[in-house]
């Protein structure tokens, strides 16, 4: 392991690896990435694998839109050795209350103004898109055909491989134990494999990012919370889009591999680092999804797991510099949607760290942690 570097990135998930790649791509090759386990072993590899552009805030829409453009050509751009399983079968978001219908109308208007060609659908139209959808209690839906899916493990590996080829040093199975500072500035990182001197540290530690911030004495208003997922056996393709309900707090998509991935946000979930699966989730998920998509009754569940959402008060990420510690950079608090916006986040973080210009850098400037003290929140209404 190097004992000195310009930039040390903490976290070998998709956010850390994509930032490493874009730093190196822009000429900053003296980068070390640290990961306490293996790539995508934390939140990235436990996520629902969805790629959605139908968001409720301008900033998330733009982050997702730019990222989706990247996903479309990612395999070729990164010259990756395997398929990233990118699929654009669309997202169908379903509304069950008049308030949700109103929110969806606002969202579609916003999305359309930004060039995301989502559309508002009647229940009948929704059923034409997903014929096996139970439209009994449905009031309306929105659909965007360019939303979809990508494989988080392969996307992360693709960025990691490309970063390595450009000279980034990646150290797996290396645990950070302290952030070294002097006179309000970062001076290095201590790990169980030794110290690395550096002037810039990037906290991209996903569900563990608060623990890293604590080591640096940097305050961030975030909590971690368990979210659970299950997956079925693979079957022939019969559901193109992700079906997502903010009412039931559920989402369900058939992957290109044929399996169905589905998840559920439980409002009773306490904060903490717990990532074991529960029987309650299995019951709640089966109950809700068989009511919403009845033919799924016949599919066998083969596995369930859990991961951490790292939540901010407004459910938008925290990007950019920590005001109280020079050289401490943050890409965290993704509130459950870090994977799908990571390509764009990485571009912006690299531009910010290297003080380069980027036409979308205003996004990062508006998502810095100071927004919470200013009271200038970017409240994302459309999170499961």
């Amino acid at each position, binding site marked *: 392991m190097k004992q000195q570097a310009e930039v040390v990135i903490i976290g070998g998930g998709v956010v850390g690896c994509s930032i490493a790649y874009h730093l190196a791509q822009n000429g900053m090759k003296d980068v070390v990435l640290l990961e306490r386990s*293996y*790539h*995508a*072993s934390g939140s990235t*590899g436990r996520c629902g694998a969805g790629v959605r552009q139908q968001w409720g805030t301008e900033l998330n829409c733009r982050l997702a839109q730019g990222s989706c453009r990247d996903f479309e050509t990612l395999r070729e751009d990164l010259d990756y*050795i*395997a398929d990233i399983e990118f699929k654009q079968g669309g997202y169908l978001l379903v509304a069950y209350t008049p308030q949700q219908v109103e929110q969806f109308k606002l969202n579609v208007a916003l999305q359309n103004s930004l060039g995301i060609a989502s559309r508002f659908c009647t229940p009948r139209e929704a059923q034409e898109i997903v014929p096996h959808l139970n439209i009994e209690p449905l009031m309306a839906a929105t659909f965007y055909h360019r939303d979809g899916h990508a494989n988080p*493990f*392969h996307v992360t*590996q693709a960025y990691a491989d490309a970063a390595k080829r450009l000279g980034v040093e990646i150290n797996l199975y290396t645990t950070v134990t302290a952030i070294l500072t002097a006179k309000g500035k970062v001076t290095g990182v201590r790990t169980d494999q030794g110290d690395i001197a550096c002037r810039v540290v990037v906290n991209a530690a996903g569900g563990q990012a608060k623990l890293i911030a604590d080591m640096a004495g940097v305050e961030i208003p975030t909590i971690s919370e368990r979210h659970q997922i299950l*997956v*079925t*056996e*693979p079957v022939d393709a019969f559901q193109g889009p992700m079906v997502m309900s903010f009412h039931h707090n559920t989402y369900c998509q058939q992957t290109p*591999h044929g399996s169905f991935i589905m998840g559920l946000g439980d409002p009773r979930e306490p904060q903490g680092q717990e990532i074991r*699966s529960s*029987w309650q989730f*299995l*019951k*709640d*998920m*089966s*109950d809700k*999804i*068989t*009511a919403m998509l009845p033919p*799924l*009754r*016949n*599919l*066998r*569940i*083969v*596995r*369930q*797991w859990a991961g951490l959402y790292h939540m901010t008060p407004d459910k938008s990420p925290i990007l950019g510099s920590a005001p109280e510690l020079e050289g401490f950079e943050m890409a965290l608090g993704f509130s459950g949607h870090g994977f799908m916006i990571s390509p764009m986040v990485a571009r912006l973080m690299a531009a910010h760290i290297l003080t380069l210009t980027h036409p979308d850098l205003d996004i990062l400037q508006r998502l810095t942690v100071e927004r919470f003290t200013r009271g200038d929140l970017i409240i994302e209404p459309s999170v499961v």
Partner: protein
Amino acid sequence: MDNVPPDDTIICRCSDVTRAELRAWIAHGLTSMDELKRLTRITMGPCQGRTCRHLVMQELAAVTGQPLEELTPSSFRQPLKGITLGAVADWVAKEKQEKEV
């Protein structure tokens, strides 16, 4: 994965992963069962890894020279045996009914 030599020895019959593909990923730098599982889907099919888990660990040990007993097996996740969403949903419905009675 691209450019894997043809090999008709199937290690994971749920996901059709050949020994050559497994070895190609190990050669690519993957050193643990957990990493191989996530990039190839071995042990994640309907058999829940019952057939392939041990074969994969043997391959990993043989190729990397790590002793088999020192390898960490991938997580065993519930449900231990595949069960349909409908069977669980019916169980939930029955519980609700019993509560009402």
